[in-house]
């Protein structure tokens, strides 16, 4: 009797929770299909996908995301590896630093950048579009640090970093070879998880791109949302699909990582 009651309680919680998340999404999706009067259609999606501004901003954000992922991986993998191998006592401090972007609002970070790198500063990164892009990538690396570091650190902890490093060293491998041939391949699934999380964060980011005045997908979403009726709903669904695809890929790679044990 008690078991039946708890089972009913669990189902009620699942139904209420699912309704809370899925109903607004279903309503948004339904609304996005109502652009044509008296019929359901994908017209709003067609308008959005053929809009040159959508293509330009989405491509720009994708490029920024890829650059962020590459920069982040090059920064985080050697750092997390070195912390685990040589400086385990600093792990707490580094974890704290990587968590700061979650605590400090993006707007505070970007105002800091504008103050530090404005056109009259010693390093005037905001003076040119390309250098502002660099600044945007740097800010995205900062934003994605909590996800990327945690993901890669978890991956490294599952591997016998010291043993593998020493085995490779005794066989004559230098640090570059150890990182590229031994460490990277063995934390590949963790790196990919971090990369997809980073992609999901960057693709819809608004504050940094808007205040640095860059033509990214986040500001475009805001612009369309303020001026159109059905297209914002279509864009919201597209953004959800991109995020979900990223999450799905994380699951796929995480599963593949588990299927092949990391300890020899």
């Amino acid at each position, binding site marked *: 009797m008690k078991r039946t009651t708890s089972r009913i309680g669990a189902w009620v919680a699942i139904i209420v929770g699912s309704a809370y998340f899925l109903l607004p999404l279903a309503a948004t999706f339904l609304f996005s299909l109502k652009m044509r009067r008296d019929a359901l259609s994908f017209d709003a999606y067609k308008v959005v996908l053929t809009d040159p501004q959508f293509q330009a901003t989405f491509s720009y954000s994708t490029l920024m995301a890829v650059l962020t992922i590459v920069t982040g991986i090059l920064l985080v993998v050697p750092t997390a590896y070195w912390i685990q191998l040589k400086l385990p006592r600093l792990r707490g401090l580094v974890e704290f630093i990587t968590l700061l972007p979650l605590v400090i609002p993006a707007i505070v970070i970007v105002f800091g950048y504008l103050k530090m790198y404005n056109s009259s500063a010693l390093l005037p990164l905001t003076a040119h579009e390309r250098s502002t892009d660099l600044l945007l990538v740097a800010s995205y690396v900062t934003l994605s640090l909590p996800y990327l570091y945690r993901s890669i650190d978890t991956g490294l902890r599952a591997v016998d970093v010291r043993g593998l490093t020493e085995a490779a060293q005794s*066989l004559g491998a230098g640090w570059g070879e150890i990182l590229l041939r031994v460490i990277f391949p063995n934390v590949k699934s963790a790196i990919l998880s971090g990369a997809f999380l980073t992609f999901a964060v960057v693709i819809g980011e608004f504050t940094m791109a808007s205040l640095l005045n860059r033509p990214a997908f986040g500001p475009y979403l805001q612009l369309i949302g303020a001026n159109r009726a059905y297209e914002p709903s279509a864009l919201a669904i597209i953004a959800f699909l991109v995020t979900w695809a990223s999450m799905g890929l994380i699951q796929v790679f995480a599963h593949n990582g588990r299927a092949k044990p990391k300890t*020899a």
Partner: protein
Amino acid sequence: MAFLDIKQISKRFGTHTVVHDIDISIERGEFVTFLGPSGCGKTTVLRMIAGFEAPTTGAIHVGGHDITQQSPQKRGIGIVFQNYALFPNLNVEQNIGFGLKVRKLPRHDIAAKVAEVMKLVELTGKEAHYPHELSGGQRQRVALARALVVEPKILLLDEPLSALDARIRKNLREQIRDIQRRLQLTTVFVTHDQEEALTLSDRIYVMNQGRVEQHGSAEEIYTRPETEFVARFMGNYNLLKAAEAHQLLGMHIDGHMAIRPESIHVLATGSHELGTFEGVIRRHQLLGGVIRYQVESRGVQLLVDRLNRNAADLMPVGTSVRLQIHGDDMRVVR
């Protein structure tokens, strides 16, 4: 100068000294074991030879060259770890060929050398397997092959058999010794297992609390321990305190008297030879081919081993026996 010459080496971690001014000399082609309990510093010495730890003081010479400051990559010393440390992303062939690839050898040379060493460790046919598809013994043979294929000047074995079950351990240790003899490879083996050390080694360094307690051949270490620690660590020595030695044998000594259980003779009942003494069996234990008796004599407890040849050899508890120990089987240890 020996091929591997370790001079006055010490290692401190913060304020804790784990290795105290050790001197070790190993000749080319020798199989030497560092034997001792956990925390005695044996692995730290091995890691200093490999270059993974820098000595706080002292120097390491190989073939007359000082390698103390050399990186592990440049030392040409192979190592096999207790936990194998195989690269999980590479198959057996790629794992073994890793060191040759790093040395940028032509592909066909790598293939030939890998095939040769795989045959040596009896792994032919397992080329495409990944480490997680192999048994513990097979993984350790891959690790051994990976270390051997680069033709190291010295092979270091860091408790390579500890994670394996008894049967595989025995087979693999015979295989390791056989390969070492065939290749005449200078080998340093680290273990806490006395039996492994005794069966494998040309010489043994017994270590305790960061110091070498005694070194010598397996025979010397087993039959002529110099310290109480070595006697206790190497087996089931009877270690009599000075007062007990006097009580039992009427001898005045400084330190302890060490007597191996198998060197105490059990004489026929009624024997009254000179230098014999009487005892009563208090307990016995069947150890396969040997029966171990606990005999009480003149208030001193002694362990006495006798061969278990047939059922008649098993003497019941309470039996009175006469015991004899020859003078050269008694050792006074520090």
